[in-house]
């Protein structure tokens, strides 16, 4: 094979594996894990019938959804009704193409294959752009269903997703300044070079990014567009069968994307932790580290879902516009200041990291104390 032809073959293989297979497999795992882990958190078993310990539950669900009748309400806007689920799933899958799952690996034949499909120099910008197309999927679906509850769900998602794009983008700007690149691969390499994961200097950014990310993916406590107890599933009320499965896949892929980006930007992507203290950890392949870190985030999603009540619409908007955006702006200034102090070796960033970690620990302890006091008072 000529190198050019090999390149094409590998790219197609990577698209098939990383963009199609990986989300499908992770999707199955996370759907099962979600129901099972929530089950254990709530003192019940969760699915345990299909296959050993119920691990094939996802397959059974998929089979059910695919074979179900695909209903379209008679008064629905047919084209938009069809486009909704499509628009929600394709951008999420496209975004996965940018995620660096691991460093380059060697394959037989002497080729080095990097574990990402595309390394675009404006990667982050592209990512933000593509994921925001996914909003249309939900808005269209809610509007086209010709159902008042779906319409309310669509309206909620329009407002929610558009407003949370802003703090998310602003939070990412701080990371951009630290890494001086928009390429996701370059951001990971910068963290390697500085021996500093951006979570430390970017603690505030990370917090804002993750809150906005949970809101972007319509998950608890920000699952207002579907809110089964208020809007009876909201935008997807009138969907069944494969179209519903597409919304489902879109939501879970979006969760994987948000988690992967969080890992890439803040937690060193495929890098092993503590390269100086525990060098043997580097023996584990990078892709394992990456997936492990993503799994932690996905667990966080599940944990949120079983712990938090749902925000109300106006409170959600308040949180986004009055808290997260100003916080992100101030954070940007502080990071910029620290970068000015010491550009090359990242000493300013390190100092910022220590300060933020200190503040974080103090706040954590204070909130624990306050909680204990209020609960004791309530009893």
């Amino acid at each position, binding site marked *: 094979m000529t190198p050019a032809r090999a390149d094409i073959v590998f790219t197609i293989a990577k698209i098939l594996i990383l963009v199609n297979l990986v989300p499908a497999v992770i999707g199955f795992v996370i759907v099962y894990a979600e129901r099972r882990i929530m089950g254990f958190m*709530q003192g019940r078993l969760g699915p345990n019938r299909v296959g050993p310990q119920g691990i094939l539950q996802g397959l059974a669900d998929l089979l059910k959804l695919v074979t179900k009748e695909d209903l379209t309400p008679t008064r629905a806007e047919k084209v938009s009704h069809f486009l909704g689920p499509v628009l929600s799933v394709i951008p999420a899958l496209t975004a996965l193409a940018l995620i660096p799952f691991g460093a380059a690996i060697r394959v037989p034949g002497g080729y080095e294959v990097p574990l990402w499909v595309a390394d675009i120099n404006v990667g982050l910008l592209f990512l933000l752009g593509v994921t925001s197309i996914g909003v249309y999927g939900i808005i269209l679906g809610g509007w086209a269903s010709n159902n*008042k509850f779906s319409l309310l769900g669509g309206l909620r998602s329009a407002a929610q997703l558009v407003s949370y794009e802003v703090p998310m983008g602003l939070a990412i700007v701080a990371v951009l300044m630290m890494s001086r690149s928009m390429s996701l691969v370059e951001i990971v390499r910068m963290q390697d070079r500085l021996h500093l994961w951006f979570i430390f200097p970017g603690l505030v950014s990370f917090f804002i990014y993750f809150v906005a990310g949970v809101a972007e993916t319509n998950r*608890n406590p920000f699952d207002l567009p579907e809110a089964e107890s208020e*809007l009876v599933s909201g935008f997807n009320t009138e969907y069944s069968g494969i179209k519903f499965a597409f919304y489902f896949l879109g939501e879970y892929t979006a969760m994987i994307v948000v988690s992967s980006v969080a890992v890439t930007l803040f937690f060193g992507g495929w890098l092993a932790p503590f390269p100086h203290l525990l060098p043997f950890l580097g023996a584990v392949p990078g892709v394992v580290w990456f997936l492990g870190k993503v799994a932690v985030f996905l667990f966080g999603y599940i944990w949120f879902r079983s*712990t938090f009540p749902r*925000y109300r619409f106006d*409170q959600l908007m308040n949180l986004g516009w009055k808290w997260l955006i100003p916080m992100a702006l101030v954070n940007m200034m502080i990071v910029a200041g620290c970068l000015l102090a010491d550009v090359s070796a990242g000493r300013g960033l390190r100092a910022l990291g220590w300060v933020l970690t200190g503040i974080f620990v103090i706040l954590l302890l204070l909130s624990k104390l306050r909680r204990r006091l*209020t609960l004791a008072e*309530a009893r």
Partner: protein
Amino acid sequence: MTERVFPGDLHNPPPRTVAAPKTLFDVTEMELNFGPQHPSTHGVLRIVLKVDGEKIIEAIPDVGYLHRGTEKLFESETYPMAIPHTDRLDYVAAATNNHAYCLTVEKLLAVEVPRRAQLIRVILDELQRLSSHLVWLGTSGIDLGAVTPFWYCFREREQILDFFEEYCGARLTLNCMRIGGLPFDLTPSWAEKVSEFIDDFPSRVDDYETLLTDNRIWKKRTVGVGVISAEECVEWGLTGPIIRGSGLEWDLRRAQPYECYEELDFIVPTGKNGDTYDRYLVRVAEMRQSAKIVRQCLDRLEPGEIRGKVPRVIKPVAEEIYASVESPKGELGFYLVSNGTNKPYRLHVRPPSFINLQALPRLARGHLVSDLVALIGTIDIVLGEVDR
């Protein structure tokens, strides 16, 4: 005093005075049918909402989807035969329904209930209050998106239902009281199991409170939502945790003690602000008090009669009488008109759920659709009792 709103007559709506909108963009109001098939209306309640975006302009409850003519049924049954019908009113709190009915007939017949029967009745009532409040806490948590407390609450509720099953064979429609006393005596092992459960119960309440009481989002969703003052509660005839949440210490167990409540040591928890959060706190505190009451009754149990002296055929003289108990939802009363035969001439129920539900339009006005769900939860309705 604020302006009162009465639900309109849905079946004969007044002619629309508003001119039809010219274009799509002239529409500012939308009519939304909330229910009767909706997960958060706790049954078959239909609420006709007029909304501007998400803001509620008007919320009119439309009841009657579960109407079974129970009050009419009472007229064709003899006095003891009516007890199972009362189970089907508030079907998550059947014991208090039985109790209220039996109390009314006993008042009519002037029958004395033996002390052991009184204590056991109070135990059953309070266990029922626990199970009813647990259903309320779990479901209103789910309404606001907190799914986990539901499973914890139902874990304990199952235990309580097991106790009922062991006592009288039924889990929900208990039929567990008789005119003048009780159908069965307690077994010592039952009392032991209940006592073990009751001693452990406060720690379970701690579990629920850990998840909710100091949860920032829970507070955001409940503090200041559906505020109603104590005076308004009185005007609307609201009772139970709603009036106590508004700060009025009104509990029939204290205000008009029946059975042996007088000698028992418990406090009537009250709130301050009359909002959804305070009603939540009141109900949680009531659960702790109920556990305390059961404990005291178990300690006072002594062997004795469980049935008073009731004639074999109950044929009271013509009279009109009203008696009520504090059900988990408020004042549950029966107004009985007898005419000298063995069947009631008329038996009217004063259902707390129905009367509390009236306040929904008043509470919901100006709130958002999400708050409506919280409000239905905080009123704590059971459609079996609302529609009868």
